[in-house]
């Protein structure tokens, strides 16, 4: 257990300014009640963050201020009566909460001030998309009277039109002001916000830093696990085939349509399984029901072998030719080396040309049908595995897209998801990443035998995927 007191932060503010959303996002809890109707939160609810059983900090969701001016008037009147100095103000707030009858008259204020009086820090939340109003001043004044360390968060629920106005106003009441979109706060933003909490009280810094380290590690592990699932999906996809025994007089082609349907259905099942596992890794259990409502998710719902999916997630013909040529040139180069240069780089040239042509042809979406003779007699007709250079890229692209959607989804999001930026930009692959993936895919294709070799190839691919996902993860930020 840490020797310092556990930081507790009461998330307070006007009703409907995203307090519960911020709590849901920071606490990773999608059970927090969020509603557009003011007064949804009636009682405080504490969300302790425990790492390996050690309580590191708590967030407290509170009801919004309803009668702030009346409370402030009571406090001022009481201060006048008792001739209280500024130093007595925290005591007066405590008296207000404890005074008989106040809980009936001011249930929301008593409920929200209770944890603050008990020592919690203050996280005051406002909406940066609407203008500043004088009705907030009584709330901020009451919070100042509590004497507790405080921080203001501007939550731009519907845009950032009034953020600067709010910053100027809040700056007069709070030492630290941050802009955080509760719905879209990425992990880095959450980390910076936690670090800002640490600035409120030096004693809180240590547990909060521990919490940040743990959250970062968990995030990293989640990403690695998701990368592992994606790599396994691609590996399975690359090795997958369906086959059927046929009679001596049967034509292989007559089974093609059926086998193709089985092949695609099985891959679709495997892809769905991967998505469910990745969703479970991120603790999102409610997304599936919302899939159909999202335009972006329609891309994922599209058939894996549809032209649209291959256009969005696959490589371009040019990339495929380049990739094929590079691979062919490398193979040809080995031959040139073996001949001690006597071939006058003919191997490189021929390899590149052949590889380029194969790369171009490798854009074919569907695998070929093959007739295979069984060693003990009989024939089977086999559909797959896909030899297309593009296929693993499409599979990976879709999985990556799904991952992006999930990993950026906060627990405050309760409705259709919109993904920014647009898919094309979001799924850009740097040439170095693409080459690394090409190598990893080629290695996977070459290890059809040998469990360990295959496991290592999958692990290597997972490493490459994890690096790409880490790059994706770092491309956002939402804090001012």
């Amino acid at each position: 257990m840490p020797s310092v007191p556990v930081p507790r932060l009461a998330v307070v503010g006007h009703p409907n300014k995203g307090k519960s959303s911020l709590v849901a996002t920071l606490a990773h809890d999608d059970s927090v009640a969020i509603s557009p109707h003011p007064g949804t939160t009636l009682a405080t609810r504490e969300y302790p963050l425990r790492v390996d059983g050690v309580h590191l900090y708590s967030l407290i969701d509170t009801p919004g201020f309803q009668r702030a001016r009346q409370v402030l008037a009571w406090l001022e009147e009481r201060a006048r009566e008792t001739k209280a100095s500024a130093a007595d103000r925290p005591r007066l707030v405590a008296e207000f909460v404890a005074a008989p009858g106040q809980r009936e008259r001011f249930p929301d204020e008593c409920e929200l001030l209770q944890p603050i009086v008990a020592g919690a820090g203050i996280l005051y939340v406002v909406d940066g998309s609407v203008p500043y109003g004088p009705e907030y001043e009584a709330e901020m004044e009451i919070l100042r009277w509590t004497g507790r360390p405080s921080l203001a968060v501007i939550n731009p629920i519907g845009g950032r039109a009034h953020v600067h106005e709010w910053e100027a106003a809040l700056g007069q009441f709070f030492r630290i002001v941050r802009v955080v979109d509760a719905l879209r706060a990425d992990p880095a933003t959450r980390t910076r916000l936690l670090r800002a909490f640490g600035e409120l009280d030096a004693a809180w810094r240590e547990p909060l830093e521990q919490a940040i380290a743990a959250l970062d590690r968990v995030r990293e592990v989640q990403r690695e696990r998701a990368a592992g699932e994606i790599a396994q999906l691609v590996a399975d996809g690359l090795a997958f085939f369906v086959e059927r025994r046929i009679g001596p007089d049967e034509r292989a082609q007559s089974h093609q349509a059926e086998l193709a349907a089985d092949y695609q259905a099985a891959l679709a099942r495997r892809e769905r399984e991967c998505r469910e596992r990745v969703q479970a890794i991120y603790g999102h259990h409610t997304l599936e029901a919302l899939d159909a409502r999202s335009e972006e998710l329609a891309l994922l719902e599209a058939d894996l072998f549809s032209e649209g999916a291959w256009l969005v997630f696959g490589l371009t013909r040019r990339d495929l030719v380049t990739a094929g040529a590079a691979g062919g040139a490398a193979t040809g180069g080995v031959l040139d080396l073996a001949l001690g240069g006597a071939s006058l780089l003919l191997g490189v040239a021929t390899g590149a040309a052949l590889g380029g042509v194969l790369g171009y042809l490798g854009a074919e979406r569907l695998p070929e049908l093959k007739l295979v003779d069984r060693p003990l007699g009989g024939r089977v007709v086999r559909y797959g595995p896909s030899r297309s250079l593009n296929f693993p890229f499409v599979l990976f692209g879709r999985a990556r897209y799904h991952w992006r959607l999930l990993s950026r989804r906060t627990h405050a999001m309760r409705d259709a998801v919109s993904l920014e930026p647009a898919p094309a930009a979001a799924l850009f692959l740097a040439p170095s990443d693409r080459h690394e993936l090409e190598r990893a895919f080629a290695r996977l294709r070459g290890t059809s035998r040998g469990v360990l070799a295959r496991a290592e190839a999958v692990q290597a691919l997972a490493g490459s995927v994890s690096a790409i996902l880490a790059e994706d993860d770092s491309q956002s930020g939402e804090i001012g």
Partner: protein
Amino acid sequence: MHVGSSGLRPGSEVRRIRGRPRVSEVVGLVLALDERSALTPSARRARDLAVASRIDARQDSERLRAWLCVGPTPALALRIRRVARAFAGIRLGFSLLGLVLGWCTAAALLAIGGSAGRVSIAACLALLVVLPFASCVVSVVLWLGSIAAARFPGRDAGERARGSARLLRLVLRLVPASTRLDVEAVLGRARAQAGLYAPLQRGQLMSWLSQAGLWFGCGALAATLGFVVFTDLAFGWSTTLDIAPERVQRVVAALARPWAGLWPEASPSLELVAATRHFRVTAGSGAGATPPLVYGAWWPFLVMAIGCYAVLPRLLILPVVGGWLAREAERVLRFTPGASELVLSLTTPQLESRAERAEGPVGRALAGMVPEVELRAWLARGDGGTRRQPLVVGWAEAVAEATLRSGLGTDLRFVDAGGRRTLAEDAAVVDEARQTGGPLVVAVRGHEPPILDLLDFLAALRRAVGAERPICVWLVGGSPADHQIWRRKLVSLADPLLSMAKWEVALA
């Protein structure tokens, strides 16, 4: 088992693993993972948590090995140690077997030959040099072949591993039954996952056989040296074939080439070869023609041949096999089913961030909505009760007076309430409303939610002006969704003459 060799003991604080992974650790890991999987998830997590802080490792395999030292229950740890001891015992057994075989073979050759008057140098070379060297070459070729075969299509791994598994099972008959059952349980799994475990089985056998080969050479060498020192050996060679000593000398010279430069006496000369040839039927003075010491001059060659061809190759191969085996054991440790989940559990902090108690009662919007009116029409119709000047209350500076007048005309009375105003100022506004008889309009910011402070004010207004005068809440700005929220919330006042209007203006 590694517990002993790495110097780690359960109970010490932080453990860092040293040394190379061993096959016995793979067996131990499989047993320990079995034990772990039998626990409930929470018990598993609690145990991992308790152990994780005591492990200091960077690599996954190191972490698994360290876990193996502290993770299993004492009873299982004992079983794992027994397995490790069994492996060490088998290794020792192979070494002793090799040593004894080597010694006995050499002793038998030299003793039997000695008693017959001549020790056949050809037999010595065949059994003490050529045979160990050939077995070494064959085992290396087979081993490399199996490694190469694993990379190419062909028979499946299970089929390839069957021979080595059978051999291993045979070897395990030497260990106590309880330990044998543990190892065989793992071998049973190896049958199901032959691709994973088969290379390890072959490697382990290769390692043990190399140990035996090395000690065979050592035993033979020791016996030869012993006989050379303590008996008088007369080496010789004979053949029924018409082979000239020159040819024999060329063969032995070729064998002695590696050390000929270093020790010329250990490379038999033509004279020695010719002088030590013997026939059963002798034509002249027989053996007496050659001085007795010449017959013993073969011993340096024999000793060097055993050292160079029976001992040295095994000595070179053993670390290679050991290194390969350690690398395979490390790979298998990582990919053993359940190992990655364990590593994840050991390296991932357990986060709990959900509320301890369930969400309590939440506020619900009331059914029904206050009627919505068009403000100008409402004022023009005189819904305010009379056609007197309307009183517009700007709540919390919802709208500037100038903006209001430009929108509604100048014939109105405008007062501020709420926001920065005090409660006394609000009370004054209520009092003024009571005295005036005109329509009552309360302008509020449409984008802000209706709060009880405003509802209290509206209730106070109602009490002041009586039940007959209509009041209109005028929403300045806000979205249609905001307007719906207002209409629903105002229902809570249960005021039949309360209505709502909206003015969609852009706010400053």
